[in-house]
């Protein structure tokens, strides 16, 4: 169903000690939606998506993922993390494990899948991110772009309902950005629900259903990419877009 709600954040407030990182954030994500989050550094983009899989706890408001309300119980956190995959800026592959082991560990441990089955699933997704021939290598033997594609495959092996991306191409050499973006575009075309923190505006135009602009812990503006880029309503958004486009 196109209109089934997968993520619903309401009135979310998040503090780091005395510093408020999220101010009254509301966000609804429907099944199959692709959302791009942008905004200046320190505006709370990472915090926003890290709250969705409870890498960060919130102090006020509510987050419901696929019908499960996130609270402090281990059970709720477990259920939500099963549904949510995440890709980090710095890849965070497990360096002491082969690519294949990186991909099979969580299905074996958290989903209780057999090793054979986990490896079959892993090889399928490694093929899908076009890296099937590297399965026996260690992460350090791969390029940055290849590592990030492994990280995407690793998350997919848990068969999540939503994928969160936190600036997945920011740590990459320019010539490797495209291969990762192409992988993400492929994923989007397959119907995956995605929230991507990124400043790749070409990617946003191509796949996003909505673009969200954040500043100082708030969602300042959101809209379809066409309207968002052509006709931003807020001065803060215009200023940010000007800076981004000047850099690219």
């Amino acid at each position, binding site marked *: 169903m196109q209109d089934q709600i997968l993520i619903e954040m309401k009135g979310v407030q998040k503090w780091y000690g005395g510093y408020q990182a999220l101010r009254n954030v509301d966000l609804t994500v429907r099944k199959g939606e692709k959302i791009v989050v942008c905004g200046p550094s320190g505006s709370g983009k990472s915090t926003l998506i890290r709250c969705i899989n409870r890498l960060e706890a919130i102090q006020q408001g509510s987050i419901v993922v696929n019908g499960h309300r996130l609270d402090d119980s281990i059970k709720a956190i477990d259920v939500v993390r099963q549904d949510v995959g995440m890709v980090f800026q710095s890849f*965070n592959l497990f360096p002491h494990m082969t690519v294949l082991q990186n991909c099979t560990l969580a299905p074996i441990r*958290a989903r209780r899948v057999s090793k054979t089955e986990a490896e079959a699933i892993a090889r399928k997704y490694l093929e899908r991110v076009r890296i099937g021939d590297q399965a026996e290598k260690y992460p350090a033997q791969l390029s940055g772009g290849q590592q990030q594609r492994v990280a995407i495959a690793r998350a997919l092996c848990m068969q999540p309902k939503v994928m969160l991306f936190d600036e997945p191409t920011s740590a990459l050499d320019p010539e490797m950005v495209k291969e990762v973006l192409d992988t993400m575009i492929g994923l989007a075309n397959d119907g995956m629900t995605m929230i991507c923190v990124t400043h790749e505006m070409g990617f946003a135009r191509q796949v996003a259903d909505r673009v969200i602009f954040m500043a100082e812990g708030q969602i300042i503006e959101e809209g379809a990419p066409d309207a968002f880029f052509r006709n931003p309503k807020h001065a803060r958004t215009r200023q940010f877009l000007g800076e981004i486009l000047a850099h690219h």
Partner: protein
Amino acid sequence: MTPHFGLPEFGFLLRGLQWTVLLTLVAFAGGCTAGLAIALLRTCGHKGVEWITRIYIGVFQGTPLLLQLFVVYYGLALTGLKLDAFVAVAIGFTVNASAFLGEIWRGAIQAVPRGQTEAAMALGLHYSSRMRDIVLPQAIRISLPATIGYLVQLIKGTSLAAIVGFIELARAGQIVSNQTFQPLLVFGVVGAMYFILCWPLSWWGSRMEARLALASQR
């Protein structure tokens, strides 16, 4: 008549060496087990538990080992628990080793990048799997040079056990030396025995360290 340093005396030193090795192995094995528990408790995220383990480590690192051996040997005797000298020093060294190894591994656990734990949590892995599969394998690698270094210190440090009457290598050397009046020869042999135990370990430790330094450059 004074005996010369001959085969029987050498045999006596060898038996001392055996006890040194045995004491080291027991203390190291016990220290590793308890030290792992200490390191895990010290990093568990629960403030109270972390404080208690911090105090434990502080007490055993902050007081002389000699004093700790006295407490175990004489102190427990006062409570009516008369321990065999080996058992007493084995307990003393184990407890002491657990504090030092616990602190070494605490540092190593915290040196594993935070992103590793976060990636594991995002994948839905529980604490036990995060530790066993992700953090500890990397922490052990990081801590290997320091752990081996501690093992070398432990081998040499077991000579303190002589103080409560336990005859290990150094004490055996002293006895033989007193009998033969050939201290240079006897302690030369004793020194060579310690060296043969410790040097390969030290060498292995520095090789590990060099390898780790190389790996972290990449």
